[in-house]
């Protein structure tokens, strides 16, 4: 038997006000009538969309200006800082733009098990006197303390213990150096110089770097293909872009300007043939011709080695799909995997989408988890907790609801405000869905006291406690068990009130044919309805409409200097909740 914990979810009212989906084709948006009648209907927690608007109270914020609940859908996120979750270094957003969203220091996760990797020396640790002060020399490797994977397994070692990201970006798996974009550029320049007629002019005069001769049929990896393609396109654009040829004047037509770019890259005026003509005249950009330019021809049987490896090394040599997902390129084998640089995280502030006021703002410093501003709904609207009224025996703890047997639950409303609130609750008579359980709230209207100083309660506690005790004994005496009275609050505390709700759980067995409604019978005849209980259909979920009213100060914030205490204002908040009370057994 699966355990069931009662829960309460709150619906953010923003779902109602979301704009109607535009009806393509017809000129008017969806008719207003249908949407308003929708509002009057009881909220159905089983509707497919309900999942997207229900939240535990802890996840909701509250806008003090709009006096409204705010959920993740009706707030705007703003990134305050980017940081590495491993080294806790802040990364400026300009760096994020240029370097990407991963830590570029030495923070890596194990490609096998995602545990954090540590840098260690391959040298034997120094021994003897002062060993702890002696620094170990290279080479260094990345080690996984959890599954003891080491970068040695993919043939990667480092000269220095820091700046691993930069070092790693220069080594392929197996230890071969990566041809850097810089070296590729050098090679490209060299080639264009060779092909260019006339004396070679060495502008910078520096030739200390060895120029790597590249192979035009080189088998490119994804990264070098990308950089070659980019260089190729840029060269093509630059070649054709100079300020001539363009029909209009003004503006910047260096490559990068939309005018020049679109003329070259793109294309198309009319039909195919007219087009060829214009293309020939203008000299459109050509296609990449070889590996230098990013062209990668699939060599026949290029995958044979892959298949042979698959056969010889089998399942254990292949990477799992989880492992592949963490990699930026296609990595069929364990030996293709590379250490995963940590993804950066963000701290975000949240604004109300309607009035743009800040609802939540974290401290910018990464090491703290504090907030400067945090308007959580928990501090503004009453929380609701559920427990069965009959005290359960310990063996009965997760006892499911018995069909057709009235069961009573205690709903406890706790007021976080410093004013007392009037609460109205309403439910439909039956839960929506195929298995309709009957619901009765014994006390739909009550007042919950203010969240005053705890001391006050302590002082007042004496009399109240006695009263509560009295009430309970009276009830127990009357029938030997607890009995709730209609219209009366069950129990009351300083800032909380408990009321009783009675549920008659539905039977999960298909109702006999003669009891079915006309519609149900029709459905069954068409074979549209099957009698099996679908996932979670046996959970009794009660939609509850809550309306909270209270009086609040208005002058409090806007400097109520001269203004007297006249600024009392009536406030009202209404929203749907869903109470998950139990599973029908």
């Amino acid at each position, binding site marked *: 038997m699966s355990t069931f914990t009662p829960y309460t979810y709150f619906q953010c009212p923003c779902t109602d006000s979301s704009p109607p989906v535009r009806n393509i084709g017809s000129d008017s948006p969806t008719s207003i009538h249908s949407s308003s009648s929708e509002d009057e209907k009881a909220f159905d927690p089983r509707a497919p969309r309900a999942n997207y608007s229900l939240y535990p109270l802890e996840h909701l914020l509250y806008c003090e200006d709009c006096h409204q609940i705010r959920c993740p859908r009706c707030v705007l996120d703003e990134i305050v800082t980017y940081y590495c979750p491993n080294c806790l270094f802040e990364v400026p957003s300009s760096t994020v733009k240029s370097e990407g969203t991963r830590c570029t220091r030495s923070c890596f996760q194990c490609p096998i098990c995602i545990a954090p990797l540590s840098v260690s020396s391959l040298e034997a640790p120094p021994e003897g006197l002062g060993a702890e002060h002696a620094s170990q020399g290279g080479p260094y490797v990345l080690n996984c303390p959890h599954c003891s994977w080491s970068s040695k397994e993919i043939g990667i070692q480092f000269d220095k213990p820091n700046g691993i990201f930069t070092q790693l970006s220069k080594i392929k798996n197996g230890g071969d150096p990566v041809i850097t974009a810089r070296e590729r550029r050098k090679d490209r320049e060299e080639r264009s110089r060779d092909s260019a007629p006339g004396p070679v002019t060495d502008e910078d005069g520096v030739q200390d770097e060895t120029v790597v001769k590249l192979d035009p049929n080189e088998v490119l990896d994804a990264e070098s293909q*990308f950089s070659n393609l980019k260089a190729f396109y840029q060269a093509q654009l630059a070649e054709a872009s100079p300020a001539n040829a363009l029909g209009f004047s003004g503006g910047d037509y260096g490559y990068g300007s939309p005018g020049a770019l679109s003329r070259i890259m793109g294309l198309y005026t009319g039909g195919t043939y007219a087009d060829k003509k214009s293309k020939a005249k203008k000299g459109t950009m050509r296609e*990449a011709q070889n590996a230098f330019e990013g062209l990668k021809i699939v060599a026949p049987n*290029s995958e*044979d080695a892959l298949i042979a490896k698959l056969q010889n090394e089998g399942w254990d040599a292949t990477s799992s799909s989880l492992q592949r997902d963490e990699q930026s390129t296609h990595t069929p084998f364990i030996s293709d995997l590379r250490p995963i640089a940590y993804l950066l995280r963000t701290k975000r502030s949240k604004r109300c989408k309607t009035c743009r006021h800040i609802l939540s703002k974290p401290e910018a410093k990464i090491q703290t988890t504090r907030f400067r501003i945090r308007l959580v709904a928990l501090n503004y609207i009453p929380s609701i907790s559920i427990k069965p009224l009959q005290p359960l025996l310990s063996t009965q703890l997760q006892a499911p609801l018995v069909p057709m047997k009235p069961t009573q639950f205690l709903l406890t409303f706790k007021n976080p405000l410093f004013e007392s609130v009037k609460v109205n609750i309403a439910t439909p008579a039956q839960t929506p869905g195929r298995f309709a359980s009957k619901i009765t709230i014994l006390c739909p209207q009550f007042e919950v006291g203010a969240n005053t100083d705890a001391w006050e309660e302590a002082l007042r506690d004496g009399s109240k406690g006695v009263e509560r005790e009295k009430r309970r004994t009276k009830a127990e005496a009357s029938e030997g068990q607890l009995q709730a009275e209609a219209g009366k609050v069950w129990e009351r505390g300083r800032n909380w009130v408990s009321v009783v709700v009675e549920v008659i759980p539905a039977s999960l067995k298909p109702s006999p044919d003669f009891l079915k409604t006309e519609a149900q019978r029709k459905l069954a005849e068409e074979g549209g309805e099957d009698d099996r209980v679908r996932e979670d259909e046996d959970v009794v979920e009660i939609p509850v409409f809550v309306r909270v009213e209270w009086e609040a100060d208005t002058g409090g914030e806007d400097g109520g200097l001269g203004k007297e205490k006249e600024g009392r204002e009536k406030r009202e908040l209404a929203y749907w909740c869903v109470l998950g009370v139990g599973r029908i057994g």
Partner: protein
Amino acid sequence: MTLILPSALPLPLLSTILDTLFTNFQAPTISLLSSPALSTAAAGLRSGLVVDVGWRETVVTSVYEYREVQTLRSTRATKLLGEEILMMLSRLINPELSQMKNPDARAAARELLSFEECEEVVTRMAWCGPGQNKSPPEEHTDGLASVKEEDEFRSSMRSLKIWGGTETEPQVSIPLKSCSPPRTLEVAFSNLSDPCEDALFAKGVPESELDDEEMPLHLLIYRSLLKLPTDVRSICMARIILVGGGSKLPGLKSRVLNELSTLVQQRGWNNVQGKAVEAYRNNPKLNKARSRNFDDGPIPVTAGQEVPAYLQPHDEDPIEEALRRESRKRNPPMEEGSLRAIDSLGAWSGGSLLSHLKVPAVSVIDKDQWLQHGSLGASRGGEISVSSRQSMGPGAFKTAGGGGDRSSWTLGLWA
């Protein structure tokens, strides 16, 4: 913000996506780009036949000068491959399944293994054989397929026991956890390529029994090429771009090329198919070079045979010729007429590439304009005229930039 979309995305869906992005993510403008065009650009090409082997379907789109010419689809894709792998594994776990009727067996198989575990086997161990006809693909002037490689290939194939090895088949073990009790299956390595034969190449099913939406990959590509105008076809066939998750299946690219060259060899680019045509073709008196009917089973290996492209002669047009000569002066000749596959970085990398180059898209949608008018505000027919200089085609990228004049805009392909 740039959106990369399949070219057949319905307008209501696109509208919803745009609404969501504009209202919830506050993007000031959104550019729309079509994924086949981007896959072409990310291969360094302007034209090509983009074969997207996806989950639910394989989509073959011919792109000519960044413009989509036509699209064909087939349900033979990764999902079907997964189902075949499931059946293969289940039969090994419970041999009784082979005796059951097909729907029952499939239902029973689903109870045996979890979907996730089956997908895991697909991504890790599935592979694609080279097919029965092992005529070596055409040699290229680039010297790609050297004689040495060819030899290496043969020896590797021999080691794979694909060429009639009589020794015991190599086995691989696959650990399975979702079946009860968990066990390690010993599978003949060649078995792991069988599901691909059934799922993607419809092995053993005559072409006449296949519906249009369940064409095997090679036929789908062939048909797609066949429908193209001759000149576009000759450009596209030398630029076959396999993308999508399914294209990662080891051996698939070579197999597709092999099958295609066989088809071209047998049929040429002739629209008419049938017994009479076959008989005519196979008549040794009329034609000695052609091999047997495609469906008849193994075709004898004729090593070193050149695959002719069987292109119909172009309708010669003197102006056209002159233009072509003219353009050749400027640009190196385009590779055409041969079968060739090109690797693309894929649509997303293509989008990133274009963003790096700041190439504007045909459809750039402004937030305020969208929120005011929605899709009704777009210019009709994907045509838009900017700064009176040039009009837009429904191509992938913008034709003329025209200094930020966005008073009229278009949904391009998706309108």
